[in-house]
């Protein structure tokens, strides 16, 4: 008996420990820095957290030859997927960790963190650095990363959303896609070309505020709905999820996916849609402009078969989103000057000129959408001619300050609401909506749950 008693209390303690380890606490789970094994050498090295998209991997590979060789500054990269990067940067920047000298964030975070006073204002550094050509940055992107006239992150890459479609498939069905289609036109076209072997349209359905949340919110905006109403001072007033416009937008989105959408929509986001579109399993696709570069790549089976139209609209004039991956300097770093030198290199015009001939994807794979001068480089113009203009138009016309029909709370934003609460509300609600799409939840129940979550945010 004695043996078992000891065993039982030991097991209970073990259980307690294992499970307690799962709760967040203030634990500092350090993520390893991948690129370099050598220890940091005093002032000559910086730690940089970046997202794992192809353009960032390119620059990580080129940094030793194009940057470190000239400046002697060593760059230790930590490459993370979008979700993890967001967890790490939020902890590091917002909660005052000291892991990184440069962190990659987007227009959702940059103005918020900037206003909270956790990021270095880059404007003085950028305007005094002649080689950086501050005025060359596309204004829409720069504004999205600024608050109160101060730029808190330097754009590395910019994107909007638009409609991509198979010209051959639509032509066969006798459909002409206008340059600025409405959602009604797109839905009709999708239902017409939909067949068992090829779905009409690919729309994101995977839960997450940056996945389904992004696509759906652009539809919600143009249908006249909103997540929250705004008080005159710009703070959150009331949750508007159970309002008719919200339901109408969700119903439209879900019905379109159910009638003419891709297979397993509730599990699909950018990558799933990309592979289905390339496999010829969908005829249209509404997503990020950056996809065009991949569809027109030399190894793409659908190269040259695609048309591009502006983001579909309903009640507003423009509906495309605006996103940028951008580099910011947390105030906690002691190496601001080195950090700026790196940012100036990574997001400056010189890198774009030097990288084109060195990266595996060629000129078409340059980080798009940050600088007007990119679109004047002759090699880029010819490599990206089928989508460069559409991308630039989409970015400059993204309705960031006035995305819908009513005033929005918080900072500017199209596919998100510029308040800190949105990522949590967006994540929880898109899980509900995704379940509706999969056919295992009713739309009214999902909206009611979501309204409850969104209402909690109004309580401050």
């Amino acid at each position: 008996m004695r043996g078992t008693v000891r065993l039982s209390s030991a097991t209970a303690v073990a259980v307690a420990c294992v499970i307690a380890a799962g709760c967040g606490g203030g634990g500092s789970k350090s993520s390893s820095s991948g690129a370099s094994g050598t220890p940091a050498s005093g002032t000559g090295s910086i730690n940089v957290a970046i997202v794992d998209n192809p353009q960032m991997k390119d620059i990580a590979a080129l940094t030793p030859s194009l940057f470190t060789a000239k400046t002697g500054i060593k760059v230790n990269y930590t490459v993370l997927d979008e979700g993890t990067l967001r967890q790490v940067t939020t902890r590091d920047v917002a909660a005052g960790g000291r892991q990184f000298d440069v962190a990659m964030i987007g227009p959702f975070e940059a103005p918020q963190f900037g206003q909270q006073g956790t990021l270095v204002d880059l404007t003085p550094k950028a305007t005094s650095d002649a080689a950086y050509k501050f005025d060359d940055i596309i204004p829409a992107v720069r504004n999205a990363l600024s608050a109160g006239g101060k730029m808190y992150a330097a754009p590395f890459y910019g994107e909007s959303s638009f409609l991509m479609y198979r010209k051959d498939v639509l032509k066969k069905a006798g459909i002409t896609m206008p340059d600025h289609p409405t959602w009604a036109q797109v839905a009709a076209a999708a239902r017409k070309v939909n067949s068992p072997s090829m779905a009409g349209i690919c729309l994101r359905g995977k839960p997450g505020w940056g996945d389904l949340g992004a696509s759906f919110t652009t539809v919600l905006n143009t249908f006249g709905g909103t997540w929250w109403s705004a008080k005159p001072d710009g703070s959150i007033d009331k949750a508007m999820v159970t309002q008719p416009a919200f339901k109408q937008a969700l119903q439209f989105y879900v019905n379109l996916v159910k009638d003419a959408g891709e297979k397993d929509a509730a599990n699909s986001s950018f990558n799933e849609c990309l592979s289905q579109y390339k496999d010829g399993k969908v005829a249209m696709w509404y997503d990020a402009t950056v996809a065009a570069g991949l569809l027109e790549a030399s190894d793409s089976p659908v190269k040259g078969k695609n048309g591009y139209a502006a983001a579909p609209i309903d009640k507003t004039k423009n509906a495309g989103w605006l996103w940028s991956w951008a580099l910011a300097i947390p105030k906690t770093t002691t190496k601001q000057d080195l950090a700026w030198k790196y940012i100036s290199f990574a997001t400056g015009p010189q890198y774009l000129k030097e990288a084109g001939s060195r990266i595996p994807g060629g000129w078409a794979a340059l980080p798009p959408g940050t600088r007007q001068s990119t679109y004047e480089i002759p090699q880029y113009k010819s490599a990206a001619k089928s989508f460069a203009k559409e991308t630039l138009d989409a970015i400059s016309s993204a309705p960031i300050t006035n995305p819908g029909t009513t005033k929005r709370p918080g900072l500017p934003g199209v596919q998100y609401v510029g308040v800190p609460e949105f990522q949590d509300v967006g994540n929880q609600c898109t899980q509900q909506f995704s379940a509706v799409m999969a056919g295992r939840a009713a739309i009214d129940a999902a909206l009611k749950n979501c309204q409850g979550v969104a209402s909690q945010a109004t309580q401050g």
Partner: protein
Amino acid sequence: MSTATRPRITRSTRPTVPRIPLSESWRRRLPLLPALLIMIVLTQVPFVMSVYYSLTDWRVVPPEPRNWVGLQNYTRLFDNEFFKDAAVTTIQLTVFPVLGALVLGAGFALLLDRRFFGQGLVRTLLITPFLLMPVVVGLIWKNQMFHGLYGVLNWGIDTLGGTPVDFVSRYPTISIIVVLIWQWTPFMMLIMLAGLQSQPSDVLEAAKVDGATPFAIFRQLTLSHLRPYMELGILLGTIYLIQVYDQIAVMTGGGPGSTNLPYFVFQRSIGGGWEFGQASSFSIVVVIASIVIATVALRVLSGLLKGEEIA
């Protein structure tokens, strides 16, 4: 059965240990203290911190000063629909996989208990699922088995003329249960096999001589012999499966019907909720539930083991 009374008898008949003086006993314990101290620092301090956090309204986004809120996180817990959903899902994702794996594992163990050509190879192959990383298992099942376009199951359905089913998004709970059963069957099988092989052969022979049918031998002798092993399997399986995380993260990324409590804790903390206070209170509830389960199960188990010894 008088199992319940037996431990008391054993306790009274236990030989008395000669008393050791207090100073002597502490001198003996001294070398163990550093290890104990490290263990306490590494395991119990984080736990106590979690308890403390669970009594505050600490959230990181938007950053606000941390306030002491007492038991508010706990009293609000049961009004939270998402928490209730997660609790129900946790029960489903624990009970069904444990029982499913136990039944299948027992079946495989019975088959493996017989001598046949290639037994060693078959046994190794059957153990393999348990050796795979949970993340890999989740990915394999999601993309190669369940997938609507590329999955084997839907290829089969398609070939037979049926309509493809989006298993993971349409039936997330069942999909994850299937994967967990697949992965945990070998574990149960090994425990059952150990049980079967420890069965005294003379008893079985005697039963045969007495003219018992194979089914009667299984029901009356083997099954009752296996009972403590089943209890052990259920106990260990429950302790592990109550904290499943990887398969959920890879297969569905959460959502109604697949977010269990550990995943919910993640979602409410660094997974986007950033409410460390609230998330800590959830995790404390899971810890308490696990300790209760473990204690109850161990009581039952120790009683049975004792009964086995005397028999």
